[in-house]
């Protein structure tokens, strides 16, 4: 029996040795490996979002920044909802139904719902005061995007919002995650990657439930880069006010002809980008989705027939192709039969030379020139000037427009189509920024610059990436022809159809346009769009402009005064208010 007990004892000894060996293996041999694993096990990296980069105007004024805010959250399903929500409704001034709607939408989660992203100190105070009666209502400090100048430059800056699943596909590689806020339009969108910065992380010790216990270390986020824009905030404001005084939708683009810098870009109606960050009221949504389309950046995304402003391109074609010269003379009896149709001029100019044909915008002269040049060549020169194609501006959403030519049209191309094209009607469609580039190209003697709105990206480490001016095409070989056109454009303002653009002490050149429209849903009477392109001063141009006022009637009386107001402010610092007079189309 004792032998057997001894055998049992040997057995126990063996088991002990096995345990010891295994422990030795785990703890001593593999110890460092397990220790490393264990550390990884209980340490989580929690993301710390990077502050979005600021956006500055050309003089350093802050157009978009981040601001600390108080946000009011409500946890769905908590407490006696109706009563407390009604109290909350009274404090924050949002209707009970609207709050309830937001909660119901999120009712299947226990995540707090953001009811008021930007609460005032007064509201926060009242909520704290009535805390007992408001179960489930939280006040949380947050960071929101702030656009201090509200509607000014809204279409340039754009706005931000939660990333959508389609946008995820675009930005995933750049580190955007679901639930992140990204730029939805404007620079905010175009420069999303530069603005977003690099997410940081917090190394947090967590327990088995993933609850943070303490912060072990942080990798600070790298804030987004600051964008220095070419926008002149004061000019932008003057231009905005000037357009808004007309009370009609429209767009203005002001470019520095020496490098393509966009000095101002206005699209009206506009919106307050803050409202996207703060939470949009139902009423504001309705307005944003109205047929007037305040979200649309008309300066780059809307197309209009250019009307007589297109004559600049036709004139260049005619001069360059030696169809006409500075001394050519035309006869305008007030109308002209082309094909089997009578094409009118706005008046009968009688005997008229080339420069006056530009200055007085004589349609018959341009029908004559256009037909001689031919549609293909008009199209070629128009495209050289940048019409009917993307300008490459660094704001997303640009539209191409259309420069037609016979091969484009499916039905036969009639000579009447060429006539219509010669005066910027028919199928011709351009964007305001294309016309601004055209004005700039004429002003600087033939250099087609890519318009830009961001001139410099300042990274957080202080390094700068400047975006040099990009010369798209050099039309300097047409220098002589352009010089003649410039003479004509100066006459437009001095004596012609655009005298409303005159500015005391500054020599201004321009071209009026009155774009005829077929009646459409948004323009039931088919009212004319009022165009004006301009540059000044004529000898050393510092600003080139394109202005369109939808259904504004005559370019000379509606849009030319806007040019005067902008040019006066930009070149003399004097802000003026100018009325318009009609001197012909």
């Amino acid at each position, binding site marked *: 029996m004792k032998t057997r007990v001894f055998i049992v004892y040997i057995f126990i000894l063996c088991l002990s040795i096995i345990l010891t060996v295994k*422990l030795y293996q785990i703890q001593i041999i593999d110890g460092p490996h397990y220790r490393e694993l264990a550390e990884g096990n209980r340490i989580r990296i929690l993301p710390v979002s990077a502050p979005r980069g600021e956006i500055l105007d050309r003089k350093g004024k802050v157009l978009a920044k981040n601001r600390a805010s108080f946000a009011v959250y409500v946890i769905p399903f908590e407490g006696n909802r109706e009563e407390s929500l009604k109290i909350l409704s009274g404090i924050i001034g949002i209707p009970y139904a609207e709050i309830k709607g937001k909660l119901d939408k999120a009712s299947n989660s226990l995540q707090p719902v953001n009811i008021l992203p930007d609460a005032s100190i007064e509201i926060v105070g009242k909520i704290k005061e009535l805390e007992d009666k408001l179960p489930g209502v939280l006040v949380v400090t947050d960071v929101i995007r702030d656009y201090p100048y509200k509607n000014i430059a809204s279409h340039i800056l754009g706005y931000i919002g939660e990333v959508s699943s389609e946008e995820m596909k675009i930005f995933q590689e750049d580190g955007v995650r679901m639930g992140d806020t990204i730029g939805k339009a404007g620079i905010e969108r175009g420069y999303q990657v530069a603005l977003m910065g690099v997410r940081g992380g917090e190394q947090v010790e967590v327990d088995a439930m993933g609850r943070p216990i303490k912060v072990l270390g942080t990798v600070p986020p790298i804030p987004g880069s600051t964008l220095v824009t070419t926008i002149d905030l004061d000019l932008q404001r003057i231009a905005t006010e000037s357009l808004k005084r007309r009370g009609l939708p429209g767009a203005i683009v002001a470019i520095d002809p020496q490098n393509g810098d966009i000095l101002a870009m206005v699209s009206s109606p506009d919106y307050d980008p803050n409202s996207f960050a703060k939470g949009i009221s139902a009423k504001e949504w309705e307005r944003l989705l109205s047929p007037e389309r305040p979200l649309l950046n008309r300066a780059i995304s809307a197309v209009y027939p250019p009307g007589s402003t297109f004559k600049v391109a036709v004139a260049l074609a005619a001069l360059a192709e030696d169809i006409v010269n500075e001394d050519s003379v035309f006869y305008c009896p007030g109308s002209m039969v082309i094909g089997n149709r009578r094409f009118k001029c706005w008046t009968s100019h009688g005997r008229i030379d080339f420069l006056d044909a530009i200055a007085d915008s004589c349609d018959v002269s341009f029908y004559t020139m256009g037909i001689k040049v031919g549609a293909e060549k008009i199209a070629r020169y128009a495209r050289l000037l940048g019409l009917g194609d993307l300008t490459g501006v660094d704001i997303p959403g640009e539209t191409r427009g259309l420069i037609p030519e016979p091969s484009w049209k499916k039905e036969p191309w009639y000579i009447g189509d060429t006539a219509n094209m010669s005066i910027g009607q028919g199928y011709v469609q351009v964007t305001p920024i294309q016309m601004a580039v055209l004005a700039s190209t004429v002003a600087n003697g033939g250099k087609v610059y890519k318009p830009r709105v961001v001139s410099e990206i300042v990274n957080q480490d202080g390094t700068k990436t400047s975006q040099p001016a990009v010369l798209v095409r050099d039309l300097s070989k047409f220098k002589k022809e352009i010089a003649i056109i410039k003479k004509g454009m100066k006459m437009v303002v001095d004596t012609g159809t655009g005298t409303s653009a005159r500015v005391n002490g500054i020599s201004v050149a321009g071209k009026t346009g009155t774009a005829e429209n077929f009646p459409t849903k948004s323009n039931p009477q088919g009212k004319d769009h009022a165009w004006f392109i301009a540059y000044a001063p004529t000898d050393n141009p510092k600003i080139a402009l394109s202005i369109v006022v939808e259904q504004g009637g005559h370019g000379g009386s509606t849009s030319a005064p806007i040019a005067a107001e902008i040019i006066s402010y930009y070149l003399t610092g004097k802000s003026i208010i100018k009325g318009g007079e009609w001197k012909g189309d």
Partner: protein
Amino acid sequence: MSGIGIIAIYSATYWKGPDLWDKQFISVLLTIPVVIIFRYIDYKILVRFAPYIYLVSLLFLGATLVLASPVKGARRWLYIGGFNFQPSELIKLALILVLADLIEAKKGEWSELFLFITCLGLTLIPFLITAMQPDLGTAVILMVIFMVTIFVSQIRIRYIIFLIGLGITSIPLAWKYLLMDYQKERILTFLDPNRDPLGAGYHIIQSKLAIGSGGLLGYGFLNGPQNRLKFIPEQHTDFIFSLIGEEFGFIGSLLVIILFLFLFTVGLYISSRSDTKAGLLMGVGIISMLCVHVFINIGMTIGLLPVTGIPLPFISYGRSGLMVNMMGIGILSSISKRRVR
């Protein structure tokens, strides 16, 4: 030994609130008289009462199947007179007693085969009940107690070998009909812990992580991150050895094993020197019971054996187990005292 237990439980439950470790402290204090009482009771009296103790334990055990409410899917606890206790702890001791009694009384009188079958029967009843609870760990322990007792009592080994052979051949059947899904899962995850790292394999992985990361010296008392962060499940009961490994390292773990080995050595020494067959069988039975607990528990925490709810004797939190183990020590002590020289 229990001192280590209290320190470890203190650490394990430090972050949960203060009451568990001092409860265990009180339990240890309360069970020390148990050792003394059993020391002065003649173990022969116990042997005489063995059939009754066995029957009562069996009754309690059977009652769990009917009365107990399931905890984590198993019925193991009985609630009597303000105390929760696990009859499965008691039945181990009762089986040791009854087997010792029977073999002492009938060896030589009955045929070996008949004695063997009777003993097997006495073991199989609680074995099946605990297996149904289900408490596979206890069932295994009962079987080991039976086998060691038979082995030491010098009944022919071929019976045991036959039984083992039968057991092995019945594994596929047991797999199909006897084991619950979670038990199968445990065995499968024991074979490959990464099968389900956040579910069934979690315990093994976390436990090995904790012990392994302890290294030679450990993180130090109360400093084990896995323990503190509650990554080790059941850290104050079944997986307390993980905590010891993490906080006291290889040295601490080894110390625990050496202490147990010392206990086993002394226990077997006492048994072998007992002047009665019953004393020897009881001593060996008690040591083998403790021994199986220790090896199954530690083996589980270091990934050598599948996860079963077997606590580490004297160290894990829990009163029923502690009480029974203390009784066992008391009986051993009584055996050593009553040796007729």
